[in-house]
């Protein structure tokens, strides 16, 4: 590192000095903390700067993508949680140090994700067989859409832990375990590409949060934690049902059991001809309901205020900052890609719910809350209404805005909850009526609160505005929302006013006006420790506010690909909607980078490898090598690039004689999909006359099977 | 010895069984309950032996009855032990007293 290189880091040094000098009287440790935060912020901006990439390009290629990074990210916290169980309960400082150590390592590891240019496909892919017979694998990968959420997790959980260690003195060991387990589970959910694995982490995530609310919670902690758990559990049960049906159909179509997202994406569920693609819609609703409950969307949001009011500060921060994002991220990744047809047609209705139920209704409820935490909880409902609107709009700008708004909401609401925690630790009450005129007693606290309020409202220059504006602009030009786009953009923009109304109302009640309550007279201002805990959020508010393109460029390719896929397979799904027995979207329909790691491809590759190896070791005398018993016999039939829909039965109007004859009569190409007999049906039974969608209505439903048909 | 048709025995066994069941359901004295059980078991044994007589190729029925007797003896012993300790606990043998399972 020659001098020149050192010189270019002068802005970071200056920022460090300014940061260190801000607090008037604080321990060196806290000054150092602030200095690091300031310096780090400037470093990230300089490091992520677009044109600086060229220089960094060379170094990155050398680093390459270490496949086990995501396993480390997910595994380390969980492993740490287990190890901590063996540490003695009394040595608080070692417990805390250990937790910080693990968080530090995982944060630095997550920074490695940012060094790799997030091009279109999957990065840091790592697959390992888990339950081969059921087609379940450990399939982790990260792409443009999930990288920032992973970094948000590794960025926010340590801060939440640091803040709650300040106030929680009882059962510290269990607290460390919960935090570590939570981080591991959430990271697992964000990077999982195998639906089973995703489901496992989705459920695992609830346990630590349930414990956290249940143990360190407020007065009605048990009721709130049970309500939180049951709400999410009810949703995820529906999700499991939808997934099972999807996997079963996939097996029906390809004969391969696979839970891999990249395989299930190709499945288009059976569309019952009487109702408009009935099972697809049910599948979509089943899967998305779990995510809507998690987001939370309008009718299912009542668990959030209760959970937040009773949760401890650290729990609240993590719940608001990261766990809610799993709902939106999962909708974007899984619901929109697995069920593009219904997602496309339901977009307008759901956007209406997001606006009326989320943005406007959430704001109104927030305005009338007496408890500051309930107010912030409802404000999260409003903010996430915006995020969901961005996703329903399905435009590149809208979706990028939605992802950015997820990160922004994580930062703004995380900071808000920590601020509420600060005042709660001093006054042990959250009723707004108890406060008044705090600005006089706690000026620094008031300033920080106002800065975060401005971010939450969406004043330009802070991060809130960028996300909201991109979403509103995205809604206006969105194609699935078609005629209603203008009206819905108008409704969303109204949300901007109501946000100001309820946030400023709260600020007014808390900080301004005369200092009436005697208890507030001699409250101590925010302590340096709490200030250091808050500073990363405050800094990120302005970093994202002023340099959003650093974040947006990394997610753009992935968002573009997914939106293109969503629009295209949405159209395809509509065309297949009427098929009686489900169908498989052809591989050519997907960009190759997207399907890279899918299980079916993997099996095919392994089968080919075995065959090659078999031919090579024992050159069998017979000319044509007997088809070696591939692990699943019907795999060969799979990747033939022919027309996706079952050619034999659908195309030929007249079903060939008897099921056994059909294989011969079918055109020589190995039909990609189910031969009309289909393994599922009893061979003896004559194939039911397939419904040819093209049959003119007047003509009787299907030509009669020749009398000799039934064997 | 083959004058008495087997159904007679079956009817007898049925009647005995019904009396035993009635006793078990209606009486409230624990001891009488146990005795009713013994009645029912005897009725069953009788049926077993009767049918065994109908198919005399093997002694299956009788051996089964034999085992039923063994079990009945064990059951009676344990039952009475329980009644004893219950009596020591609640000072009565009325079956209604043992309702700690109530809702």
């Amino acid at each position, binding site marked *: 590192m020659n001098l020149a290189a050192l010189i270019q880091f002068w802005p970071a040094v200056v920022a460090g000095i300014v940061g260190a000098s801000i607090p*008037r009287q604080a321990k060196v440790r806290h000054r150092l903390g602030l200095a690091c935060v300031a310096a780090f912020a400037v470093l990230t901006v300089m490091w992520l700067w677009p044109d600086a990439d060229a220089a960094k390009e060379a170094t990155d290629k050398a680093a390459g993508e270490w496949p086990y990074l995501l396993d480390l990210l997910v595994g380390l916290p969980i492993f740490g949680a287990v190890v901590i169980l063996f540490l003695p309960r009394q040595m608080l400082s070692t417990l805390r140090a250990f937790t910080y150590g693990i968080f530090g390592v995982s944060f630095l590891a997550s920074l490695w994700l940012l060094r790799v240019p997030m091009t279109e496909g999957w990065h840091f892919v790592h697959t390992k067989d888990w339950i081969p017979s059921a087609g379940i694998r450990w399939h982790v990968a990260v792409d443009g859409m999930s990288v920032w959420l992973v970094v948000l997790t590794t960025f926010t959980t340590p801060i939440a832990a640091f803040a709650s260690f300040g106030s929680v003195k009882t059962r510290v060991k269990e607290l460390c375990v919960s935090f570590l387990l939570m981080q591991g589970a959430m990271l697992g959910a964000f990077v999982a590409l195998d639906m089973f694995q995703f489901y496992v982490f989705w459920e695992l995530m609830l346990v630590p949060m349930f414990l956290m609310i249940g143990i360190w919670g407020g007065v009605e902690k048990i009721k709130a934690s049970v309500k939180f758990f049951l709400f999410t559990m009810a949703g995820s049960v529906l999700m499991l049902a939808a997934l099972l049906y999807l996997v079963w159909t996939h097996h029906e179509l390809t004969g391969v059991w696979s839970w891999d997202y990249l395989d299930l994406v190709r499945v288009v569920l059976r569309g019952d001809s009487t109702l408009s693609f009935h099972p697809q819609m049910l599948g979509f609703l089943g899967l998305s309901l779990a995510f809507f409950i998690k987001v939370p969307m309008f*009718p*299912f949001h*009542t668990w959030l205020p209760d959970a937040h009011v009773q949760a401890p500060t650290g729990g609240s921060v993590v719940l608001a900052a990261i766990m809610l994002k799993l709902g939106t991220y999962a909708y974007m990744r899984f619901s929109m890609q697995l069920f593009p047809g219904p997602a496309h047609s339901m977009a307008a209705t759901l956007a209406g719910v997001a606006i009326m139920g989320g943005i406007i209704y959430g704001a*109104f*409820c927030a*305005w*009338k809350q007496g408890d500051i935490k309930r107010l912030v909880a409802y404000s999260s409902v409003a903010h996430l209404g915006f995020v969901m609107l961005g996703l329903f709009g399905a435009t590149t*700008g809208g979706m990028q805005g939605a992802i950015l708004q997820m990160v922004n909401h994580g930062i703004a609401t995380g900071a808000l909850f920590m601020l509420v925690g600060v005042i709660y630790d001093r006054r042990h009450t959250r009723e707004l009526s108890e406060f008044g005129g705090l600005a*006089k007693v706690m000026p620094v606290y008031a300033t920080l609160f106002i800065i975060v309020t401005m971010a939450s409202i969406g*004043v330009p220059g802070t991060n809130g*505005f960028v996300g909201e*504006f991109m979403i509103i*602009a*995205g809604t*206006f*030009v969105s194609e699935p929302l078609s*005629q*209603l786009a*203008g*009206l819905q*953009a108008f409704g969303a*923009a*109204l949300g901007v*006013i109501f946000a*100001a109304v309820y946030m400023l*109302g709260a600020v*007014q009640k808390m900080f*301004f*006006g*005369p*200092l009436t309550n005697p208890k507030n007279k001699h409250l101590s201002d925010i302590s340096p420790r709490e200030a250091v805990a808050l500073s990363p959020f405050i800094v990120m508010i302005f970093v994202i506010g002023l340099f*959003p*393109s650093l974040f947006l460029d990394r997610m753009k390719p992935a968002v573009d690909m997914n939106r293109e896929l969503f629009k*295209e397979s949405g159209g*395809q799904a509509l065309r297949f909607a009427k098929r009686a027995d489900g169908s498989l*979207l052809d591989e050519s*329909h*997907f*960009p190759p980078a997207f399907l890279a790691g899918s299980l079916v491809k993997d099996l095919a590759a392994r089968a080919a490898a075995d065959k090659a190896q078999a031919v090579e070791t024992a050159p069998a005398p017979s000319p*044509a090598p007997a088809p070696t018993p591939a692990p699943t016999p019907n795999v060969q039939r799979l990747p033939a690039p022919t*027309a996706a*829909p079952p050619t034999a039965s659908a*195309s030929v109007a007249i079903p060939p004689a008897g099921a056994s004859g059909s294989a011969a009569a079918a*055109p020589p190409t190995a039909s990609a999909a189910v031969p009309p007999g289909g393994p599922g049906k009893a061979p003896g039974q004559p194939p039911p006359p397939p419904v*040819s969608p093209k049959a003119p209505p007047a*003509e*009787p*439903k299907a*030509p*009669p099977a020749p009398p000799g048909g*039934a064997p | 010895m083959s004058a008495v048709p087997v159904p007679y025995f079956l009817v007898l066994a049925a009647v005995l069984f019904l009396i035993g*069941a009635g006793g078990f*359901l*209606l009486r*409230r004295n624990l001891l009488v309950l146990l005795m009713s059980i013994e009645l029912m078991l005897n009725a069953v044994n009788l049926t077993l032996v009767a049918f065994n007589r109908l198919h005399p190729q093997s002694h299956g029925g009788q051996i089964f009855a034999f085992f039923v007797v063994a079990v009945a003896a064990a059951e009676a012993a344990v039952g009475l032990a329980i009644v004893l300790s219950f009596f020591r606990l609640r000072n009565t043998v009325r079956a209604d007293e043992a*309702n700690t*399972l*109530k*809702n």
Partner: protein
Amino acid sequence: MLSTIKQQFPATNFALLALILLMPALGALINGLFGKRMGKDAVRLTALASIGGSFLASLVTFIVVASEPGSRVAWTAWRWFSVTGRMRQDVGIDLAFSADGLSATMLLIVTGVGFLIHLYSTGYMAKDKGFHRFFAYLNLFIFAMLTLVLGDNMAVMFIGWEGVGLASYLLIGFWYEDEKKAAAGKKAFIVNRIGDFGLIMAMVLLVWYSGSLRFEDMQQRSSGLLTQVTLWPVTDLHQTIMPHWLASALTPASPWRVSAATLIGIFLFLGCAGKSAQIPLYVWLPDAMAGPTPVSALIHAATMVTAGVYLVARTSFVFVLSPAALTIVQTTGALTALFAASIAFAQTDLKKVLAYSTVSQLGFMFIGVGSGAFGAGMFHVITHAFFKGCLFLCAGSVIHAMHHRIHDDVASQDMRNMGGLRRYLPLTHATFLLSCIAIAGIPPLAGFWSKDEILFRAFASHIAPASAAVWVPPAWWGKMIFFVGLTAAVCTAFYMFRAYFLTFWGEFRGWRVVANFRPKKHGGHGHGAGALAGPPPHESPGVMTVPLVILAGLAVVGGFLYAEPIHVAPLAHVLEPVFQKASQSVIVPEAAHGLVWPLMGAGVLAGVVGVAAAYYVYQVRGGAPARAFATSTGWFYRLVRDKWRIDELYQHTIVAATHAVAETAAAFDRWVIDGIIARLTAGTVALGGALLRAAHTGRVQVYAASMVAGVVGVGWFLVRPHADALVDTSGLRSSGRVSLTAASGHGYSYRWRTQDDDESVAYGNDKSYAVDLELCEKRTVFLGVKNAFNQAAERKYDLCRDANVPRAPGSQEAAACCSLDDAGRETAREWVRSKLKELDDTQKRLEETKRAPEGLLKSLEQRGIKVEQLPGPPPAPQPPSQGPGGRP
């Protein structure tokens, strides 16, 4: 010198703009973070230095821009973010700043007047504890205003727009201990936010229609704004959902269509009304007087409120395309001018009078820009900044003097406690008088030139519509605006001089002036009614009076910057090129030029009449006619004094409505949604539990009894016979054969009979039964079953062979099977038979065509040649296969 600057700072990367912005930002940061530690002097120094530096840099920029008209300097910092355009292209929004003629002049005003006001407030706020906080906010405000003015695209301007709103929120609520003052700050921010909502919608629309947010691009592509937009009905969705009568009521005969320019114009004007306090959203400005006076001077006179006018001027290319929008701007401006002036009559608080006069003058500016005279509108902004700034600062020094003995905020601003200050505050009196003359529009001072130009252009000019279809205001509209403006001018002159006479002339009503007054040690402030004694009010210190003098001087000289009638308009050739494209479609007929002087005469006359009336009422008659008027029309006077009770109107209508909706929403959420989802489910589960628990009596015999009951139930089921049969209708359509197979059971015997044979048929062992149906024939079959305990059961099956759709037998439709009458049934049978025959022969034809290729395939197979899959569709006729769309 100019060339070195140009060479040093190239036009495209004009880093000087960065300097202009950076200085106040740095000042705000330093004062904010380290203010308390630096002490008052250091804070004063940083604040003044940063604004002074910024002013100098703005001066240089102005010179560079003015050197060659129509030029602009730009500085692009970095790509901020990008949104999706209509054709799904990426609309990049950069953090870019540029200064053309308009921005350069605004730069000078903001930094120049800002610097004077900073200087003034170092004196005014000297004794205030929040000294460093005040200057931090003030610098922040200047930074935000500069961003607004220098914004190259609307998004960056929006940063400034809301930044200014935020700064005014902080400054108005500066003394936050007082509940009312803090509430005033909140009100200002929320009302501004309503305006910002309009701006966001305008931006989104502009991205849609012109594909970019940069002012330059929007200007070039402004032709796209003429497309029609249907406002209502937005979608035909409501036809399907709502009942017919409601739907037809909602769909108007012809859908409401309006041009995009008008829609965007209205949204933009909503933003301007919010920021520049026009009719619907002006309510926050009078309350904003709760802030310190220099704040009112800077924000509510010189800079922030004029942002609305600047926006209309900047987006003139939108307004010019839609005369309707311009007329709305013009009319609202006129109405506001008159309305605010009327309120100012009855105000006793000096700052409230000035506040309403600001609202009124803003009305004038909007009349100016509304009638297409963007240059005149902006010129009035400049002159207004001078004299209104001076007026507010004079008011500040008067209040500063009054504070010496009257510490209550409201009383120290009440004109009834002032009077005769001429003798005590000579300098303030002189500057106040000069500014009053200027605002009254008496030549040759600044106010006259700008107001007169506006009234003339309102009277004369009209907009040439882009096409015939565009709505154009009636010809007399301009005249009507002119007269409204004229009356407003008269009122302005009257209430300004009313304030002047009440404050500076007559006897001093503040306290009994005692020459060498020494305050008693304790309780020196005993407020006996009128018995308050005190020293003569003293003039403000130098640091406060110097800005007054400068501003008064500017108010006097300023007029000649843009004096159109006498063609002395150096500022014109800086401003005109900016509006050059827009003013092409603004026509001032030749005949009107003749009217310039007479209209000017009318303007002067209005001013003089106003002043004379004020002099007569307040000086000659000592205010008697005012009091007489007040008593005679009691309720009307009180109405005007209470500002037409607009605040209360809003409070009881809009605000009350939103509170009500919010209340219902919160209650709905707690009781209904939470009630249904959480409590209802929990309740049902608990109820179910309670019911089940009752079943457990704990007594062993009861359990035994229930077991016996269970045995009996199962026994009964096993004992009862169940008659059931599987009906196979696969052959129904072709041959009419229906076969029924009965379900087997222990010791069952079966009996089949049709409706005609009687009960006596014996029970046999045949489990299946077949029947042949003719077309449209209906028959019922009975299945009887008897079991070992010779219990019998029977079940009826109705079989029917319908003409076309083989409905499942046994369902209700079966009764309607072939509901045709006999003749109809016959024809149906004929038709179905013909259809069947036709199908048979097509099948035969297909068989032949298929056989040919298969034979070929079979022969190839025999010869052991593995046939690779044939590319493309197989020869057999196949409907267009749903091949994959493939990635385009």
